[in-house]
């Protein structure tokens, strides 16, 4: 029995290790300081960099966060604290559906309502598309974290004559804040790795953008897609480099989550 389990574990980990290994091997050679800053060069230009792509990803995830964090947390609080209302049940269900929604469809949706109407690809459109992906995740993790806060704490606070909104803000959220932050970081990690929606909303670019509303914006994922399928060896190598950067960012974010949860567990053990 134990052997079967071990086999399963190995089989699960092997692909990840394999991918990480491949990316590391193929991408490491391209990495240097210039790579991070320079503008992209032609298909045979080894001195080209992915600066705009990194900046673009950063900006669009940032925009997405600006939308999705308040909305997601707000929705999460609503689902958790008013869970008995019909609206909550219905919209909660819709939220769960959105969590696994095909991102290409979301991208298409934003393409139609923003890109077509403004006649521009833009960072805002890209960010907005990403936020549609992030909101359900943040809402769901917020709800679950807040639901873990024991009802008795809410009652204790209300029994002191603290109004409901203050109880939610100062006691419930405060107690569940680690879960909230975890959800946000996970959503960010997810958004950073999305490609399809950005293809349709921000497209690609070779410059650092000067405006977020009317210029196509580069992103790491789209660059990997474009370069990786280009057929030019230099560009393909750079795609691997970009992939390495992306993977390192994802790993970093996930590690961040692990560390904060780890701290939370130690605190919980003290009780």
């Amino acid at each position, binding site marked *: 029995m134990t052997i079967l389990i071990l086999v399963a574990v190995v089989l699960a980990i092997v692909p990840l290790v394999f991918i990480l290994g491949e990316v590391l091997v193929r991408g490491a050679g391209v990495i240097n300081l210039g790579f991070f800053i320079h503008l992209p060069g032609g298909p045979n230009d080894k001195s080209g960099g992915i600066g705009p792509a990194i900046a673009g990803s950063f900006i669009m995830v940032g925009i997405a966060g600006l939308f999705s964090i308040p909305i997601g947390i707000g929705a999460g609080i609503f689902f958790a604290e008013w869970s*008995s209302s019909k609206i909550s049940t219905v919209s909660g269900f819709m939220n769960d559906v959105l969590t696994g929604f095909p991102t290409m469809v979301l991208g298409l949706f934003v393409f139609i309502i923003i890109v077509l109407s403004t006649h521009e690809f833009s960072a805002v459109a890209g960010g907005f598309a990403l936020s549609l992906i992030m909101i359900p995740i943040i809402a769901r993790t917020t709800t679950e974290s807040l639901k873990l806060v024991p009802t008795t*704490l*809410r009652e*204790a*606070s*209300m029994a*002191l*004559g*603290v109004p409901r909104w203050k109880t939610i803000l100062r006691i419930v959220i405060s*107690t569940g804040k680690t879960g909230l932050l975890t959800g946000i970081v996970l959503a960010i990690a997810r958004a950073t790795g999305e490609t399809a929606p950005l293809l349709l909303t921000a497209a690609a670019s070779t410059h650092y953008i000067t405006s977020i509303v009317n210029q196509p914006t580069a992103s790491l994922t789209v660059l990997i897609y474009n370069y990786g399928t280009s057929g030019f060896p230099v560009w393909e190598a750079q795609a691997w480099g970009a992939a390495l950067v992306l993977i390192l960012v994802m790993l970093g974010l996930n590690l961040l989550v692990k560390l904060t949860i780890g701290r939370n567990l130690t605190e919980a053990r003290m009780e």
Partner: protein
Amino acid sequence: MTKLSKRFIELPPAKVETINLRATYGKVQALKGINIKFPENQVTAVMGPSGCGKSTLIRCLNRIHELTPGAKVEGQVILDGLNIYDPKVDPVVIRKRIGMVFQKPNPFPTMSIYDNAVAGLKLNGLRDKKKLDELAEKSLRMAFLWDEVKGDLKKPGTALSGGQQQRLCIARALAVEPEIILMDEPCSALDPIATAKVEESIFQLKKEFTVIIVTHNLQQAARISDYTAFMYLGKLEEFGETTTVFEKPQSELTEKYITGKFG
């Protein structure tokens, strides 16, 4: 028909009383018309078998019952001549006058001992550090916890033992300076020594407050209460001075329950 022990007429003035109080959880009728007067500055124990409605009763007194989804309350609860269920009354204000200590100790996990003690005050906007310090010490002393924690008030509230946590919760309830303290089986999660300490503090509290304590521990009810109410299946079966109820109960049901002949 509630049996009243013979000395009922000498009851001290009631601090809070219920008039035909009924309460439901969804379709279940937990309280079927309770009329009870809780004497001021006395400890009244409310006891009865599981499901008799004793916890529901006290949760109606500070309007916590209605926070449970599907819960409803009808009837009146009169506090100093005011019906707290009057639509014009703000429940938040009532809960500042009627405090509560719960069955399982529930200090706020993100707060220190000090912050827990004055949580009710700080959360409601009190900033005066001097006043907060004063009230923190006063309430921790009244809960018989001051001496044990005064050395390190910044420690998290959850770093204390179970008994200490419960006394912290008592201090937290006291700091708001309510008039009535409700306690829902406050010692059931505690060991005998912690229980003894909590009972000690309850005994002193009645000098300043009116205490209403739900307990399933008969000996505890006998030890610390001045008056005892016995409830059964959502009704008030008997009410009277504790010594009388425990020496010669008027109702056969009460007799059966306290001598352990139930079931």
